[in-house]
C-alpha cells in the first residue's frame, strides 16, 4: 500500500515548482498538531492516520452525485474540480475568467508557505495541491447567475485550492461545493478577495462522505466599502473542521458569515472564525447555528480582533446550539480582542435542547414527536437558509431538510 509520505514524495518529484518543496519542508518542520495545542484540543487527531491517505497524482474518476447536479442546475457557470484538478472549462460569460495558477502565491502576493506558516494542513495544501483554481470577476462586471464550483474528492488525500477575485465594483455569487472523500482526508484552502465596492456572496457547502476528514481554511480579503456575504454549511464528514477568517482591510468593508452544521452518529463539526478589523467603519456579523444528535459534537470558536485605528467598527458574533441527545455535546467559545475604544462589539451564545413546551404544543395538536422535532429543528435553521441566494436555495434547503429529518429521527431514538 502506498503511504502518504511516499505518494507525497512522488507528487513533489513530478511537480517541484510553485513553492511546493518549500511548503513541504515547512510542513515537516511544523509537524502535525497534537491534542495539547489549544486549537486542536477537540480534534480526534489519533484517528487521523495521515499515513493511510495516499495523495492522488491525478484526478480520481469521480462523477458528480445527483445532489451536485441539482446544484449545478441553478448555476450560470459550472466548474468541476476533482482532487484539485480543474476540468476543462466551457465558454464563460463576459467579465468572468477562470485559470489555474501554479505560482504558489496567496492573493496578498506572499508565498503560500509564508502566508500560512505554522499551519500544518495549509502547508500540506501548498505542497500538494495541483494548482490554484482562480475565478476572476472583472471590475464592474455583474454576473447574472451563480458560479458553481463542484469540488469532488476521491479517496486518499485530496488537496484543492481556490481563489475568487471580485474586481472593483463587481458583483458575483459563488458556490463552493464539496462531496466525496470516502475514508479520505480532504484539505481545501480558499481565498476570497473582494476589491473596493465589490460584492461577493459565497456559499461553502460541504457534503462529504461521513467517513471523510476535512480540514478546510478560507480567508476573505475585503477592501474599502466591499461586502463579503458567506454561508458555510457543513453536513458531511466524520471530522469536519472549517476555519473561516476575514480581513476587513478598507474603511466600510463588511463581512457577514452564517455557519450551519448538523451532526449525527460520531460526527465532529469544528468551526473556527477570525474576523480581523483593520480599518475604520468595518462591520462583521457572525451567526453560527448547529444541531448535534446521537454522539456527535460541535465546536464553535470565534475571535473578533479589532486593531487600533479601526474606529467605529461594529462586530457581532452569535452562536446557538441545539443538543438533541444526552450524549451529544457542543462547545461554544467566543473571544474578543479589542485594541480600539470607539467600537461596538458583542457576542452571545447558547447551548440547549429543544423547548419541551413548544414540542408539547405541537404534539397536543396531533403532531408525532419525530415530526415535531423535525419542524422545530427546521425552524431553528430557518434564518440560515432564508439568507441563501435564490438560485441555489432550493436544492440546499431540500438537502438540509433531509438531514434534519435524519437528525430528528436519531434524536427520537435517543430521547
Amino acid at each position, binding site marked *: 500500500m502506498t503511504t502518504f509520505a511516499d505518494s507525497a514524495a512522488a507528487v513533489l518529484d513530478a511537480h517541484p515548482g510553485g513553492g511546493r518543496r518549500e511548503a513541504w519542508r515547512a510542513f515537516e518542520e511544523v509537524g502535525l498538531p497534537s491534542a495539547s495545542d489549544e486549537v486542536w484540543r477537540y480534534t480526534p487527531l489519533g484517528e487521523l492516520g495521515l499515513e493511510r491517505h495516499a495523495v492522488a497524482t491525478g484526478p480520481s474518476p469521480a462523477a458528480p452525485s445527483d445532489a451536485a447536479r441539482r446544484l449545478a442546475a441553478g448555476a450560470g457557470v459550472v466548474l468541476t474540480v476533482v482532487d484539485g484538478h480543474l476540468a476543462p472549462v466551457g465558454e464563460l460569460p463576459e467579465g468572468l475568467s477562470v485559470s489555474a495558477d501554479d505560482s504558489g502565491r496567496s492573493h496578498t502576493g506572499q508565498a503560500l508557505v509564508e502566508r500560512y506558516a505554522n499551519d500544518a494542513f495549509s502547508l500540506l495544501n501548498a505542497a500538494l495541491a495541483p494548482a490554484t483554481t482562480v475565478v476572476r470577476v472583472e471590475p464592474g462586471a455583474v454576473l447574472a447567475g451563480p458560479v458553481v464550483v463542484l469540488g469532488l474528492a476521491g479517496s486518499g488525500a485530496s488537496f484543492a485550492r481556490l481563489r475568487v477575485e471580485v474586481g472593483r465594483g463587481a458583483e458575483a455569487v459563488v458556490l463552493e461545493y464539496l462531496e466525496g472523500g470516502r475514508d479520505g482526508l480532504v484539505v481545501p484552502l480558499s481565498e476570497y478577495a473582494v476589491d473596493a465596492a465589490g460584492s461577493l456572496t459565497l456559499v461553502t457547502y460541504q457534503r462529504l462522505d461521513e467517513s471523510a476528514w476535512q480540514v478546510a481554511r478560507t480567508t476573505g480579503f475585503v477592501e474599502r466599502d466591499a461586502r463579503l456575504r458567506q454561508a458555510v454549511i457543513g453536513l458531511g464528514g466524520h471530522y469536519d473542521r472549517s476555519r473561516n477568517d476575514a480581513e476587513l482591510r478598507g474603511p466600510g468593508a463588511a463581512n457577514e458569515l452564517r455557519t450551519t452544521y448538523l451532526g449525527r452518529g460520531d460526527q465532529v463539526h469544528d468551526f473556527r472564525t477570525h474576523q480581523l478589523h483593520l480599518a475604520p467603519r468595518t462591520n462583521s456579523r457572525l451567526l453560527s447555528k448547529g444541531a448535534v444528535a446521537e454522539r456527535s459534537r460541535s465546536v464553535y470558536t470565534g475571535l473578533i480582533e479589532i486593531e487600533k485605528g479601526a474606529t467605529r467598527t461594529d462586530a457581532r458574533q452569535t452562536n446557538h446550539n441545539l443538543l438533541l441527545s444526552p450524549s451529544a455535546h457542543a462547545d461554544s467559545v467566543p473571544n474578543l480582542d479589542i485594541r480600539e475604544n470607539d467600537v461596538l462589539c458583542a457576542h452571545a451564545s447558547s447551548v440547549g435542547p429543544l423547548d419541551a413546551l413548544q414540542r408539547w*404544543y405541537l404534539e397536543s395538536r396531533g*403532531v408525532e414527536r419525530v415530526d415535531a422535532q423535525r419542524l422545530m429543528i*427546521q425552524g431553528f435553521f430557518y434564518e440560515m437558509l432564508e439568507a441563501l441566494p435564490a438560485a441555489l436555495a432550493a436544492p440546499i434547503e431540500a438537502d438540509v431538510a433531509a438531514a434534519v429529518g435524519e437528525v430528528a429521527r436519531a434524536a427520537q431514538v435517543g430521547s
Partner: protein
Amino acid sequence: MTSTLSIQGLRVAVGDREVLKGFDLTMSTGEVHALMGPNGSGKSTLAHALTGHPGYRVLEGSVTIDGRELLGLSATERARAGLFLALQQPLEVPGVRPLDMLVAAGADPATVGARVREEASRVGLRPELLERFVNVDLSGGERKRAEMVQLGVLRPRFCLLDEVDSGLDVDALAAVARRLSSAVGEWECGVLAITHFRRLLVELVPTTIHVVRDGRVVATGGPEIAERLEREGYDGFRAPRA
C-alpha cells in the same frame, strides 16, 4: 357516532402540590359543558393533564374516550384520539408554520391551504397572519382565533377551552364562542369550556355546568347552577369534607 369522554377519580400534582383530588366528569360529543370555579380550583390543571403537558403529574385515576384509556398515551396519541386544547395563552413556536404543523397533525396537504383560509374568514382572522410562525407576532385575540382555525381544520371530537375569556376582547370572545357553537352542530364536537366568568356562556350556551372547588366537582346541573352562582358566588358551593 356519539363518543363519551369519561374522567374518573383523577388526581394530579403540579410539583409537590396535589391540585386535582379525585375529579369526576362525563360528557358526550355534541354537548357543551362549562367548568366553573374560582382561581386555583384546578380547572387549568385538568386541561393540561388531559393533554399530557409535561409539567403535570397524574397520580391516580382514569380518562377514557369510549372506554379507551388515554392516560398512558403520549400527547400526540391523546390528540389523535380526539382531544384538542385551546390554551389560555397559546404558545409561540418560532420557525414553524401553521400549515406545516397542520399537515404534520394529519390535515390533507392538498386541501389544507384552502381549509385554513376558509376557517380564518369564519373567525375573522386575516389569512396572511397564518403565514407567520405558529402564534408568533399575533395579539391575544388573534392567537385565540388562530387556534379556532386549527380546530376547524383538525375537527377533534372534544375541545377543551381553557379560560379562553380571560384578557380577550369581546369581539374575539364572540368569534370563538360562535365557532365552537357551530362545531357542535357540524361534527358534534364536544366542548368543555373552562371559565370563571359567565360572559363566555352567553354566546356558548352550555348543556351542563360543573362547579369545581379545591380539585373536585362539587355540583353538576343545568342553567339553575349558573343562577345559583350568580346569587351565592362560589362560597355557596362548599367542597364536601373528604
